[in-house]
Structure formats: structure tokens, C-alpha cells
């Protein structure tokens, strides 16, 4: 069939809907074509992000066909040339009303006590497309309710209308069919498998898309009503995917997060950690007032007194040891504006370049910023994706969803990982390697080296190489996802691996997969040694920036690990911790512990009491998620807006204010009095962020954020406009009366603002952005010592960090620590699974139950990071971060 084309040359089909001529794209579903033409068809089972199934029958319309007009579900019918559709004929209306009446006969109509009441697609469509009253006078179906089908999901079977959205989400999107429809007829119910709770990292999405109140969360159940809610659209800052969300509050407290359908990012999904992590905002362990250590105890003091104490300590440190005696760690959870303010304070006021948002738990900053970036969409549309990461489902869950879908759609994934990950079943090839060998593996993969990496299967490597050869010479269509596969394997070796691929495939693009929410933004803002805001080096950017910032440090300072080491060595006397807890965050616990103990003075700037705050001399409380505006930058380099919905507790301040007030105590001014002013300064002075100001991000077209640096074309959103919020697909957003900012903010911009931005940009300067070249001679890992196991330290989603520990919905989900080995090791050790063994490294030893993971190569022991409170000894106690890899010995207890 030859396609008809419209004037723009796109293939189109013509149909009539209720007598009006409509153009549609071939293959488009009738329900979507009608909606674009302004004819809304009622629906329940249909969800734009799920495969249509045509089950609920709510969208029945009359459609012309060989047998005259027949009733067809619009969600299952692709448009066809000449199709005639009647959506509002007597027959279509009667069918729709009939279905709605059927749906309600067993529905309890307990709207007054139902969480969904007021934001319910069933309620709304009963009004808009229902018969008005029911003729059903029989006894309704009764069931015990609610029942807990998983730890975060309650099911009210009486309210369920059996649309299968939840079961289809679980199977299609999450890839975990942990729930399904059980039984039949009107006894059909959503059920987990016997004895296996619905405990998915993505379970909350089923609640979000439920078109009735059948699925509810213990976290939100009975907490609020739609008319009591206020909301803002913001960005989730749980991990670096940066999912778009609405944060909803009631009576000044955050009560619910819902995923927004941001096409390039989360496509409406969230992980449960992102969905429920906001609970930590209202934790009893929030820092509410500045404290200063007096004697053995911390005493609440005024901001004035605390800042004076902090400034005095910093001044003292500078006087004794020069500016280099001050080290600043952390900041990866700050907003860009906060990070910029602290970078400015550090580099232009305090004069230290020993600043690092990473605590040796990521990758060298130059690699993160200096490799050509890929977007998630580019990864999802690549021909080949190579992963040099840990388990993405554990670290960046929604990125995992996107890559899983991409793999199902034909993207070939080469996974380089020591242990199998959630992505392994979708990978074309998995290359299991011995920790420390990743650079060698990458070299072998691209054919740069003959040396065979230890532990890698020959056949798998050959097959993966064949796939790589299918790429064109430059590697167009190759995306490398590069993160930190193991905390016991140095970031330098991973960066070297990425670089080896780049050398072989100069057109390859890289998607950094670091986990901390705004680590990419913090590095972009200059919270890293040798870097200035906007992805430029200290040398390259010095001249351009010093006009605005004043004098800058003479030479690059120390990175996270070196700062800790220098503190141990008494070269740094005073540490500022920007929301980090080195005891928990640094992969090398012994180094962190020694540094904190050795430091003369520690200033903690953060949101919660932690092990580190307890060891600090001054504690300064700042605003956290949901309490601050500004912007954040995700793993793609996508800058999107953060919005405040609730007030910080007590007298906590925004973090940038703290930097500004400290600057004043050094006779300096950072030069801004509000977040928007900082945004403007970033847009003016940070080369990679040039033009990215409040006006640009506030425009409705940029609700999904913009990827920096803005290309020659001001903002390329690929002809794609952000999706309007669909009240049936994601109930609970449009039903809130107070839509808040920035939804409003966008609308308030003068028309055409996006186009007007370009001329206003400052002229491009000649400051080159940083590019990555690894330092020479990063020592490769030695062969493992005799009888030793090579250590892998993996991350898990529910690790015992502040966010999880302080969120009641998540706190109980932290797994118990164990050491995982290949089954062969059990035989060697002559122990049974579950029995306790001693795991000993050169640093320390732990006693842990032993467990099996047959995806591990023999000779590897795997531990999960951060499963114990930071005061306790976990996996990081074993790691020596100064070595490319760590060996451990296992002994029977």
C-alpha cells in the first residue's frame, strides 16, 4: 500500500471522526488520533506507556468496516485511510455507558474514604461518560481488604476494575511479572505468586497508574485528599537519572511524589526509592539549628555564633598552613546553585582548590566531564551499548528501565561486569572479568591490545568483538555507559577503560553513570580539583573567570582521596563536609576514619545527623530536597529545575546562603542574594552552562530540562514537545487545584521566550571545555595473591544511607550483609551456604554469612557497600583505595 503524504512529506492517513476530517500518522492508534483531534475517548486499561490490550472496553466506538459500522475498541485499532468513526452515536454512547455501568456494579463506591476520591479516572469518567445512575440492586462482591501484596503496596480488590495496568507494568516495563491476574470471571483479582510478595524496586508505579483506588501505598494511604494538596513539579534528587516528579504537600509536609512523563528521561516511571525517599525530609533526625561542640557536647547556637566559629577555624587553618590547609569534601547532593556558591567560596575566598564532590567513590572528574556525552535517548537508540558499570537497577533504576526497553527494541548491549546484573538477561554479551582488569578488558574488546584480560571467557570476548567490528570505524552509534562497577576497583582504571574505547572509536559517546543525585552538576560547578564552573580547567578558565571571581588558586588542588590522605598526613587541618559522611561514603573506611580523627577542625554542612556530624565541631543545617529551588544536572548533563514545596525545618538555611555568610566573614561577597541570581551568574560565566538561565528553563517547552552545553541551535528538543500531563495515565496531578510553580512559571513567560533567549546570550568565549586524557602510568592491578579472592564491592538500592535510613517506607528494606562467592569456593572452604566466614583483607576483617552467586567468576568475593551504619564496619573497612584492586582471604569460622 503506497503511503499518502501530506505537504510536509510525512506519510498520513485520512479519516473522519464524528464527521470531521482528521489526519493521522500511519500506525497511530485511533484513541490517540482522536485525542489529538480534540475528541477524548474514555479509557481505563489504555496507558500510553503500555501495550494496548483492549480489555476494559471503555473506548468502544463505531467504526466503518466491511460489515458496516461495528463497535471496536479505539485503543486497539490502528487508523486506516478512509476510516469513518462515530464516537458519540447513540450506539457508541450506549456501549460506553453500558461498560461504565458494568464497571460500577461491583465497585464499592466508597469514594468518600478512598484515597483516589477526587483524582479518580473512574469517578471522573463515571461523570463524563457514565449513565448517571446504576440499576444494579444486587449484593456487591465482597472481599477482605486491603491486603498487602508487597511491602509497599496494598490491594483493595473490591475497588479493582481489572484493567491490568499494574500487571502489565510489572511484566512489560519492570520486566518482573511478580503480580498477575488470578482466577476468572468477576472473581478475577490481581495477585502476587503464593509466598512471593510483590517486592519490586518499581512497585510504586503500579499505584501511580491504577485508575481506581485499588492499589494504595502505606505511605500515602489516608494522608491527604486531593483538595488538600499543593504541588510543584520538580526533579527527583535521589539518583543522577533526574526523573521529573511532582512533589505534593499537605499542611506543610511532603506527602507524595508522582512521576511525570518526561519523554527523554523517566517516561513517567520512578523507582520506589525516589518515590518514597522524600520521607527523610521530615525525619526526626533532621538538623534544625546550628550547633557548636562545647566540651564533649554539641550545643545549639545562633547562626551568627556558628558561622563565627566556622570562620575562625578556617582563618586559623589558613594562617597556620595556608589556603591548602583547608579541604572541602562532598556536595554531590547540593543544587547547582548551592554547589556554585561553595565552589566560589572555596576557590575565590578561601583560596583552596582541594575541593571534591566525590570521595573516591566515582570516577576522575576529568573523565566524567571530558568524554563526549550521550543522552539517555541516544543510548536507547544506539546500535551498541557497552556498559562499564555496576548493576544499574541498583544504582540508577530508571536508566535500567530505559536500557532494558532499548535492548528489547534491538539495541545490542555488551555488559562488562564481574557479577551478573539485572541487565544481564538483556545483554547480547556479558564479559565477566576479574576486578582490576577492566582497562585491559576494554583494550581487548576494541582490539587495541593482544593481552588477554584475566578471567574473561574467550568465546564471549570474540563474539563481543565481532559485534564491535560491525560498527563503522569511528564508532558512530556506540554509547558507553561508564560508572563505577566496584568500589574496590579504582575509578582510574575504569576511566582508562573508557578512554581506551574512545581512542578506538572517536565518535563513541559516553553516558556517565555515577549515582549521587547531582554529582554531575557539582563537578560542572567546579566542586573538583583543577576545575572551574562550566566544565573548564583551572588553567583554561582562569583568565576569563578571575575578572568576576578574583584571584584563583595557583595550581590544582587535591582530589577526594588525596584530601583525606593529606588530612591524615597533617597537611590539611580543617575539613568542610558538604552533606557527606566520609565514614559511609568513602570506599576506604580506614582512610576516612583516620582523616576525621586527625583533622583539627571539621565543619559539617548538611541536612541530617550522621556519623560525620557527630564528629564535627560545627554543624550547619541546610535545606534539603523539596525545600530548595534552583537546578540540578543529571547523568546526561541535563539541567532541570528544582522547586521548593515546604519550608526547611527549624532555622536551617539554603546551602548557598551559608557559603555567602561565610564569605562575608572573610570580608568578601559572593555577589548574589537569591537563587535566580546564582542561576544567571552560572548562565553568564560557566561556559558549558552558557544561556541556561531561569527564563530558559522556565519556558514550558523546556520542562524536561536542557542538555548542556546548548548546541549551536539554542535548544534542540528533537522536535519533541513535552507531553501534556494525562490525568487518566497519571491520576493525581491535574486534580490538584494549586498547580504551583514551575508549571505556572513556564506559562507566565512571554510567548516565544525560548526563541528570544538566543540573542541575549553572552558571546561565546574561547575557553575550551575540558577533554579527558588519563594520566600516564596508572598502575594495573597485580595478579591476585595466592589463595586470595579478588574483592568486588557493589552498591544496592536500599543501602543504609541517610535517605533510606530516614524514610520509614524504605528503612526496613536494607538487606543483611553477606559475602557472595561462586559455588566452587564453598567446596574449597568446606562450608555450607549461610554459615559464617571471616573475610580478611590487609586492612581489616569481617565475619559474614556466605552466600552463592554462580554468575561470579571463581576467585572473586562480592560484598555490598553501605549495609551497616557508618559508625560500624562494612565492606569499606576491607578496601585499600590506594590500590587498583583489593584482595581478601576467606576463612571458616
Amino acid at each position, binding site marked *: 500500500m503506497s503511503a499518502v503524504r501530506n505537504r510536509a512529506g510525512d506519510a498520513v492517513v485520512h479519516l473522519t471522526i464524528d464527521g470531521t476530517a482528521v489526519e493521522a500518522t500511519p500506525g497511530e492508534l485511533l484513541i490517540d488520533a482522536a485525542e489529538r483531534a480534540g475528541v477524548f475517548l474514555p479509557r481505563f486499561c489504555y496507558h500510553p506507556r503500555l501495550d494496548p490490550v483492549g480489555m476494559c472496553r471503555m473506548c468502544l466506538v463505531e467504526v466503518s468496516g466491511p460489515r458496516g459500522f461495528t463497535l471496536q475498541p479505539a485503543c486497539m485499532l490502528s487508523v486506516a485511510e478512509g476510516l469513518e468513526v462515530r464516537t458519540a452515536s447513540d450506539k457508541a454512547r450506549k456501549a460506553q455507558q453500558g*461498560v461504565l455501568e458494568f464497571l460500577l456494579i461491583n465497585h464499592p463506591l466508597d469514594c468518600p474514604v478512598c484515597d483516589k476520591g477526587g483524582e479518580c479516572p473512574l469517578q471522573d469518567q463515571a461523570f463524563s461518560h457514565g449513565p448517571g445512575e446504576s440499576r444494579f440492586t444486587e449484593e456487591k462482591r465482597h472481599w477482605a481488604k486491603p491486603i498487602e501484596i508487597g511491602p509497599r503496596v496494598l490491594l483493595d480488590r473490591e475497588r479493582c476494575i*481489572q484493567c491490568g495496568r499494574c500487571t502489565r507494568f510489572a511484566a512489560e516495563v519492570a520486566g518482573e511479572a511478580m503480580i498477575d491476574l488470578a482466577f*476468572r*470471571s*468477576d*472473581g478475577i483479582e490481581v495477585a502476587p505468586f503464593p509466598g512471593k510478595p510483590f517486592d519490586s524496586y518499581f512497585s510504586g508505579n503500579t499505584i501511580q497508574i491504577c485508575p481506581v483506588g485499588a492499589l494504595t501505598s502505606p505511605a500515602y494511604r489516608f494522608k491527604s485528599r486531593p483538595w488538600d494538596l499543593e504541588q510543584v513539579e520538580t526533579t527527583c534528587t535521589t539518583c543522577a537519572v533526574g526523573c521529573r516528579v511532582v512533589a505534593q504537600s499537605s499542611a506543610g509536609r511532603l506527602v507524595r511524589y508522582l512521576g511525570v512523563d518526561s519523554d527523554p528521561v523517566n517516561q513517567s516511571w520512578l523507582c520506589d526509592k525516589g518515590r518514597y525517599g522524600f520521607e527523610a525530609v521530615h525525619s526526626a533526625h533532621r538538623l534544625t539549628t546550628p550547633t557548636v561542640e562545647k566540651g564533649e557536647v554539641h550545643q545549639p547556637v545562633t547562626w551568627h555564633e556558628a558561622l563565627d566559629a566556622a570562620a575562625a577555624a578556617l582563618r586559623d587553618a589558613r594562617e597556620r598552613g595556608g589556603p591548602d590547609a583547608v579541604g572541602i569534601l562532598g556536595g554531590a547532593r547540593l543544587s547547582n546553585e548551592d554547589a556554585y556558591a561553595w565552589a566560589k567560596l572555596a576557590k575565590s575566598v578561601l583560596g583552596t582548590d582541594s575541593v571534591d564532590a566525590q570521595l573516591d567513590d566515582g570516577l576522575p572528574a576529568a573523565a566524567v566531564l571530558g568524554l563526549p556525552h550521550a543522552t539517555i535517548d541516544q543510548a536507547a537508540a544506539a546500535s551498541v551499548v557497552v556498559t562499564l558499570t555496576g548493576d544499574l537497577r541498583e544504582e540508577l533504576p530508571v536508566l535500567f528501565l530505559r536500557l532494558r526497553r532499548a535492548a528489547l527494541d534491538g539495541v545490542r548491549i555488551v555488559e562488562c561486569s564481574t557479577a551478573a546484573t539485572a541487565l544481564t538477561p538483556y545483554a547480547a554479551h556479558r564479559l565477566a572479568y576479574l576486578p582490576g582488569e577492566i582497562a585491559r578488558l576494554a583494550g581487548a574488546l576494541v582490539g587495541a591490545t593482544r593481552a588477554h584480560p584475566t578471567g574473561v571467557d574467550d568465546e564471549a570476548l570474540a563474539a563481543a568483538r565481532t559485534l564491535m567490528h560491525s560498527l563503522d570505524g569511528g564508532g558512530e552509534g556506540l554509547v558507553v555507559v561508564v560508572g563505577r562497577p566496584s568500589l574496590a576497583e579504582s575509578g582510574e582504571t575504569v576511566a582508562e577503560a573508557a578512554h581506551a574505547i574512545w581512542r578506538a572509536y572517536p565518535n563513541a559517546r559516553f553516558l556517565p553513570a555515577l549515582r549521587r543525585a547531582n554529582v554531575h552538576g557539582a563537578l560542572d560547578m567546579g566542586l573538583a580539583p583543577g576545575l572551574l564552573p562550566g566544565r573548564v580547567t583551572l588553567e583554561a578558565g582562569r583568565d576569563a573567570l578571575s575578572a568576576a571571581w578574583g584571584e584563583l588558586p595557583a595550581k590544582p588542588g587535591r582530589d577526594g582521596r588525596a584530601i583525606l590522605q593529606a588530612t591524615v598526613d597533617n597537611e590539611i587541618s580543617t575539613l568542610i563536609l558538604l552533606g557527606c559522611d566520609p565514614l559511609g561514603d568513602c570506599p576506604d573506611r580506614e582512610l576516612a576514619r583516620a582523616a576525621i580523627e586527625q583533622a583539627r577542625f571539621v565543619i559539617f554542612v548538611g541536612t541530617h545527623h550522621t556519623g560525620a556530624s557527630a564528629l564535627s565541631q560545627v554543624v550547619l543545617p541546610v535545606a534539603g530536597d523539596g525545600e530548595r529551588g534552583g537546578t540540578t544536572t543529571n547523568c546526561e548533563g541535563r539541567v532541570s529545575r528544582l522547586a521548593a514545596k515546604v519550608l526547611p525545618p527549624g532555622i536551617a538555611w539554603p546551602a548557598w546562603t551559608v557559603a555567602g555568610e561565610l564569605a562575608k566573614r572573610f570580608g568578601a561577597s559572593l555577589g548574589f542574594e537569591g537563587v535566580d541570581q546564582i542561576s544567571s551568574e552560572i548562565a553568564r560565566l560557566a561556559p558549558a552552562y552558557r544561556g541556561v538561565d531561569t527564563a530558559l528553563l522556565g519556558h514550558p517547552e523546556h520542562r524536561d530540562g536542557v542538555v548542556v552545553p546548548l548546541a549551536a541551535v539554542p535548544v534542540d528538543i528533537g522536535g519533541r514537545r513535552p507531553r501534556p500531563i494525562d490525568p487518566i495515565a497519571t491520576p493525581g496531578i491535574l486534580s490538584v487545584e494549586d498547580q504551583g510553580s514551575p508549571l505556572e512559571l513556564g506559562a507566565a513567560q512571554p510567548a516565544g521566550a525560548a526563541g528570544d533567549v538566543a540573542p541575549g546570550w553572552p558571546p561565546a568565549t574561547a575557553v575550551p571545555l575540558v577533554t579527558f586524557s588519563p594520566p600516564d602510568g596508572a598502575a594495573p592491578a597485580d595478579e591476585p595473591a595466592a589463595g586470595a579472592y579478588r574483592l568486588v564491592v557493589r552498591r544496592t538500592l536500599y543501602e543504609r544511607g541517610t535517605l533510606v535510613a530516614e524514610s520509614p517506607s524504605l528503612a526496613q528494606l536494607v538487606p543483611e550483609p553477606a559475602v557472595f562467592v561462586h559455588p566452587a569456593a564453598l567446596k574449597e572452604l568446606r562450608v555450607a551456604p549461610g554459615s559464617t566466614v571471616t573475610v580478611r583483607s590487609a586492612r581489616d576483617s569481617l565475619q559474614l554469612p556466605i552466600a552463592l552467586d554462580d554468575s561470579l567468576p571463581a576467585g572473586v568475593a562480592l560484598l555490598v557497600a553501605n549495609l551497616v551504619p557508618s559508625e560500624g564496619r562494612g565492606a569499606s573497612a576491607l578496601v585499600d583505595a590506594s590500590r587498583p584492586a583489593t584482595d581478601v582471604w576467606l576463612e571458616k569460622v
Partner: protein
Amino acid sequence: MLTSAPRIVTSRLDHEDSYTLERYLATGGYKALHKALRMKPEAVAAEVNRANLLGRGGAGFPAGRKWSMLRAAETTYLVVNGDESEPATFKDHLLIERDPHQIIEGAAIAAYAVGARLAFIFCRGEFALGLERLTAACNEAYEHGALGGRIFGSTFSLDIVVHPGAGAYICGEETALLESLEGKRGFPRIKPPNFPAAIGLYGEPTVVNNVETISALPWIIQNGGDAFAALGAGTSTGTRLFALSGRVARPGWYELEMSKTTFRDLIFDPALGGGIADGGELKAFIPGGVSAPWLGPDSLEIGLDQEAVGRAGSMLGSGSVVVLDQTSCAVRAAWRITRFFWRESCGQCTPCREGGHWLEKILRRIEEGDGRFSDLDLLMDVCDNLAPGVSWPPEQTTICVLGSSIPSSVASALRMFREEFATHIRTEECPFAGAPHEMAGGR
């Protein structure tokens, strides 16, 4: 009248050991397969086309045409539908238990014609004896060389898998059957696009034929399509196996020449139904399974002919004829049938899932004396929401025809016996209570 037509699918059934290979071979078994394998597959299909063998599962679609609609593909599957589960339908049950080799031979002939190398016989799980005999027959057939590699020394190979159903009526619907075969929940697939001939088992083109359809193939190959087409009249050729039940003197199975035999013959001929039980009067009959609209005594002269029954506003369907006499309660009959459909709804589509039970509740209420006069219009309107227009053939608001089958009996009962409903409601009891059989009324 009883015609001289041969018994085509039940020829062996008078023998006690009809299910054994020994008896099968002694009565000409597997000769047709030998013959078919010497023919070209297209010639086999042409023979079936000439026979104009209408599908015996209920829809009555010509088997040869069904085969010709297969999408060309590397892999094609044959599925034999033996999931006979409807009340009053017991013809396939008979053939499975009493002549399994005939099914296997027919399946091999069909598979050869359509190029399938793997066939599945989906057999109702409750047919314990049938499954045992079918499985044993398969083993015998392998042993005999009628199944497996290079059948009878030809280049044709076929494996047959006997798959017991798990107790759902809906799996007799061909696309639900395929889902179930694939190990999934028996939800019917949406057509279009999932016509089995295009997107069938595991996405491959698939022929799904009823047990009786398949059983007729050996005779057609042996005797020629023309011989089959010479029986019956018009499009209704050959013989059909009828399952007669209800209030007749001689309920049972009867293989009769189509078209030339009438419902009067079937119900009243002394050699067949033998008249109404206990010398009663005919009130109504269901001509083709419980999803078919009912007919009254004035329709007795209609032949057992697919088109003729269609013209009368019903269908020959699965060939199950149920007889109601003057002591049978129409409300109760409609309720019992509706209860069956409600319980067997897969639950996928809203109208069937919810509407079936609603109708059942109203009908039960009326039968138990708690009816209201407003229920009569309500029943019809709920039926209308399941099958708009409540006409024949029904329009659908659901994915498969189970939903639109529910109104048949409800609307028939209401249209033919409205006064009987009124009596139930007015007297607050079933007027047939106390009659000594299942079809009488009462609580």
C-alpha cells in the same frame, strides 16, 4: 426422516474396542493417510475443499477455506480443538474416547495438507479416559509408523502433542486455547490482528480444527470430497454428529445426514429422540448449543442445515440439541445457562465479566420468587449492553463471542415466554416447582 447416509465419524463405535489400533486397522484405519501421503498436499486440500466440510466446532467455517488462508511461513502448526466443555455438548467427548485413532489419522492428513510438522491435540482435562486413550493411541500410532519421522516411509514427518486443558471453558475459544497452549492464562486474543491463520501459536500461522472436523478427514480422503458433498444439501454437506439431550425419550448421540433430516426427525423419530420424555409436549428446543437462541415447535420442520437454522434466527452451532417440555421452566433454563457463562467468563472484558453475573443474579432472583416487573426490561437492556441490538448473529462489545453468547438464552426465554416470567414475579414463586426432573423450577 432417517436417510441412507453412511456413518462417517461414528462408523466404528458399535465395537467395544473401537479405540484400539487393532480394531482401527481392521476397519480400514490409516488407509486414508497412506493414500493422502501419495497425493500432493494441495490435492489433499482440494479434496477437502470439494467436500465443503464445514467446521464442526460451532462457527461452521469451511475447513478447506480455513487452510487456504494460512500465512506463508517456515513453521505452521495444527491444533486440534478437543476442549469440548459446554453443557449438553458431548460429541467430541465420544470421538476422543471411542475413536482416538481416527482423530490422529485426520490430524496427520490435515497436517500433511497444510505443511505442519507439529500438531497439538488440546483435550479437555476432565476427559480422563479420553486423555488416556488418546495418549495410548498416539503411542500406538508412533509404533505403527503413522506418526513420527518419515510416516509410512514417506518424506512427511509429524509429531503430536496431547495437551490436557486445565478446566476452563474459555480455552475452547481458539485464541484462548493458543494462549493456554503457550502456557499463559486463557485470555482470548483480539482479532484482528490475531487470526490464528496469520498470528497463531507462538506467533506462527496455525490451523485450529475441531475434533469432529478432523475425524471426518479420513473418510473424505478415502471416499473423495465429492462423495461427502453428495450427502446433505447446499452448503451443509456430509453428516453431522448431534448430541441430543433434555426432555426427550432417547437422549444420546446421532450421526445424521445434514439438511435432509429435520429437527422433527431428530426429536420425534422413534429411532432417534423418540419423542418427548414421559409423553410430554415440546415447549422449545435449543438447536445448536446453549449459546444459540431457542426455537419453538413451529421450527421443527427446519432441516439440520446450517443456513436454514441461520435463517430461522439461530445456529446449528456445536450440534447440541436441548429439548424443553411443558414441565421445563424457561426462567430456570435461562438462569442455568447464564450461570454457566458467568462462571466461565475469562474476566478479561468488562461487559462479560460483570454483565454475566448481573444477569445471573436477576434471573435467579426471578426464579426464586423475588423478581420485579422492571427486571424484564432491565434484563433485555443488560443483554443489549453485551450484544447491541440483541439480534442474530449477535454484535459484540467484547473480545470474543462468549460475552455476546450470554444474551441468547435470556432474550429467547424473555421473548418466547414473557408470560412465564410474569407469573414468577406475580406469584413470587416458580410455577414449575416440584416437577421431578432437573429442568423444573423452584428454589
